[in-house]
């Protein structure tokens, strides 16, 4: 993986985006710009719309109303975007074969596969486990393999949905170290979490969602030091937002 120049995928702009399904409004009138830079972290309680927002930005879901553009264009296929879902599905193959599959899907020439697989396994610290069945890896190892598989696409933007939920501190640190390394290579990271500690450790800027709307957004230090809204203050104070 090389350092990449700012990409035409960015900025991703949401303009009045609403998602409704079955009479329930999941996201309501979201206007938001995701630009090149340090990781953007989406925080908010469960059901606030974080995952839906990631799926929209990835292009897996179309808005009910409103418009999303990637670098100013509509309907850009997700060739330079990648996502790690909250529960990544591992193909029933070895760890290396999972990576080769992603490389093939991304149209990377076969001659480069062996080298890229080695690089990716090394990046996520799974060199020794390349031949292990992916579904037999531990939770933390699976999460790291899912990160490597997403990076196989050589993305300009990487979406992460609760990448460390249900991991222990050691596995969480391993995943967060990879996220930092990825961000330092100029890959834009957009990440959802409900772990405030993680948000503090990784975020460049914060978008706080509640009940399908953005309640507050801004640079991470300002958000954590001087939250402007009562919801943000309550959330930061550890109160249960319902």
């Amino acid at each position, binding site marked *: 993986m090389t350092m990449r120049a700012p990409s035409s995928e960015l900025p991703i702009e949401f303009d009045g985006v609403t998602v409704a399904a079955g009479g329930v409004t999941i996201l309501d009138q979201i206007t938001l710009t995701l630009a090149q830079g340090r990781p953007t972290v989406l925080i908010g309680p469960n059901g606030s719309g974080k995952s839906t927002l990631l799926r929209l930005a990835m292009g897996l879901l179309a808005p009910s109303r409103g418009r999303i553009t990637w670098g100013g264009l509509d309907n850009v296929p997700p060739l330079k975007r990648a996502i790690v879902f909250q529960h990544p599905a591992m193909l029933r193959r070895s760890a290396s074969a999972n990576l080769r599959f992603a490389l093939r*899907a991304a149209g990377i020439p076969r001659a480069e596969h062996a080298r890229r697989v080695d690089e990716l396994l090394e990046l996520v610290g799974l060199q020794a486990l390349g031949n292990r069945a992916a579904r037999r890896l531990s939770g933390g190892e699976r999460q790291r393999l899912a990160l490597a598989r997403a990076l196989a696409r050589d993305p300009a933007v990487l979406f992460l949905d609760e990448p460390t939920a249900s991991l222990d501190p050691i596995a969480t640190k391993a995943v967060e170290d990879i996220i930092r390394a990825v961000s330092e290579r100029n890959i834009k990271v957009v990440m959802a979490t409900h772990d405030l500690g993680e948000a503090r450790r990784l975020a460049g800027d914060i978008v706080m969602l509640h009940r399908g709307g953005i309640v507050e957004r801004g640079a991470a230090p300002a958000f954590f030091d001087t939250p402007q809204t009562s919801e943000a203050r309550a959330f930061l104070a550890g109160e249960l937002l319902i």
Partner: protein
Amino acid sequence: MHMGADITKIDHNDGICARYLPNRISMTNDVSALHLVLSGDAALFAIVRLSLYVSLSAVVLAALIGIPLGAWIALTRFPGRQGVIVLLNALMGLPPVVVGLAVYLALSRSGPLGAFGLLFTPSAMIVAQTVLVMPIIAALTRQTIEDLWLEYRDELTAMNLGPLGRVAALIWDARFSLVTALLAGFGRAAAEVGAIMIVGGNIEGFTRTMTTAIALETSKGDLPLAVGLGLVLIVIVIAVNALAWSVRRAGERLAG
């Protein structure tokens, strides 16, 4: 004509057989059955060969139709899909004699496929067993691929994979379950007697298989051959199940 003669014989002999059976089962019969198997009796192994040829051909044909059909039903939404799935699952339990009768009617000289002259040939038996086995393979494939698709859908969509790439990935990742489905189909084909008896006619040296021969020889009272074939059939069924078991185990180890 052969078939007519044989079937009459079976009917005719049923009563006799029932009357004489108790006296005729003896150690001598069992020993000579084993002797037939162990000495590699030519007639016996010709029958075994034909049985394997018919059933394996039927499984291959049924797989060529059933796997794509099952995958297609799993991945497509169309009106009446639920009904097709229920029908397919119901067809897994098709009575072999009814399949035999239907194929008999289709292949008989006045039937729609009569011009091919297939009735009372091994080809007719392959057709009948294909009809019998195909729903099993298609239904099991449908279930397997659909479950896997629910699990993989997000990932494969995010990788921007086209329809062919998706199907290929799903079939490949379902390979161990699909092999089990094929073996289930083979077990069904190898064990059935009703369909091939009707469309094959149980002609000696031509369409006589293990199961039809066992039915005939038992009713004739030639127990050594029947018992010998029964032993071979049971060994094959056990071997097939052992194979299915080891394929599953290997699959779990290699692919998780």
